[in-house]
């Protein structure tokens, strides 16, 4: 046996190492994750409320989710437009920015119970104030450039109360 063969056998070569790595299959996703994805796809909205206790629930219909995103998109487009005006003209073959939305999350920061009060019909209702932050992200797949928009929100939930 020559030196080369002996050396090749003694040292784990690169191909052998790659084969070893590729022979290991990544651990499968948990069944609950597939259910969560299915639920989000069925509902048509991925906006998730993180309540601080680890529970994630889809809470908004798609139409309401797109409303702030549309405003954020308009704002981003306006910013790009203003930046374009302030820069010298570029050659016409330069492609337009093609950012893709990749993430939209609403995180509940604080929830304050404001107690029970009576409405105009003298019916009891509980008011809960929710302070949250919406985060939307776009990414330009050509160079990985990221753009993030954060929208603070404050909502009051009105819940019916029964004293039975």
């Amino acid at each position, binding site marked *: 046996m020559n030196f080369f063969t002996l050396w090749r056998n003694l040292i784990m070569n690169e191909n052998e190492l790659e084969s070893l790595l590729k022979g290991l299959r990544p651990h499968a996703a948990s069944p609950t994750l597939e259910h969560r994805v299915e639920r989000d796809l069925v509902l048509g909205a991925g906006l998730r409320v993180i309540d601080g206790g680890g529970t994630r629930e889809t809470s908004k219909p798609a139409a309401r989710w797109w409303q702030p995103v549309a405003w954020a998109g308009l704002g981003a487009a306006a910013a790009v437009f203003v930046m374009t005006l302030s820069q010298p003209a570029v050659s016409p073959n330069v492609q337009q920015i093609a950012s893709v*939305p990749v993430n939209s999350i609403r995180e509940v920061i604080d929830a304050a119970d404001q107690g029970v009060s009576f409405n105009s019909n003298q019916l009891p209702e509980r008011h809960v104030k929710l302070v949250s932050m919406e985060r939307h992200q776009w990414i330009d797949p050509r160079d990985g450039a990221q753009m993030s928009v954060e929208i603070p929100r404050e909502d009051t939930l009105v819940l019916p109360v029964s004293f039975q």
Partner: protein
Amino acid sequence: MCLTEPDQPTNASDWKQCFRELAPRLIMYARGFVDSVADAEDVVQSAFVRWWQRYPDGDRSQVPLLYAAVRSISLDLRRKDMRRILREAKSDVAVESEDAPFFDVSVEQKETARLVAEAVASLPEEQREVITLHVWGGLTFAQIAQMTGASINTVAGRYRYALNALHRRLEPRREDLGAPAPVTA
């Protein structure tokens, strides 16, 4: 295989097959950025839903964008200190998930998987990312370069350094890896 070439029609209900194919790789990639499997699954859920809503045909050419989304969401999640604090305060169930395995392996491969997982985890983040995306994600260096913002040469260099580092760490454990035994003269 759920993924299709561009312009090839598919059934929109194929998302499950596509998800089952992609999710393990995506979770493994996300676990390189976040601490727990639970967080990695949250990241993958958000990224996959967005991706599938945008590309309901499972366009293969757009898979790098899915990985880019996982990367972006993971990094954003990691930046949130509040999330880390909450995670540390979670119950023992969550802590237990931290030890979840990286690979689905047979009994014979268990030790190999453990050693490889430890070796990969010991890599610097940039090298671990390239190894994960190239070996288990199946992405090319060009695709990795595009989604990470690094040059192809940089990506290839990181891959080379990573392989060398893994080699240095795994070679002494060769007998435990099930690799061919060295030939003795």
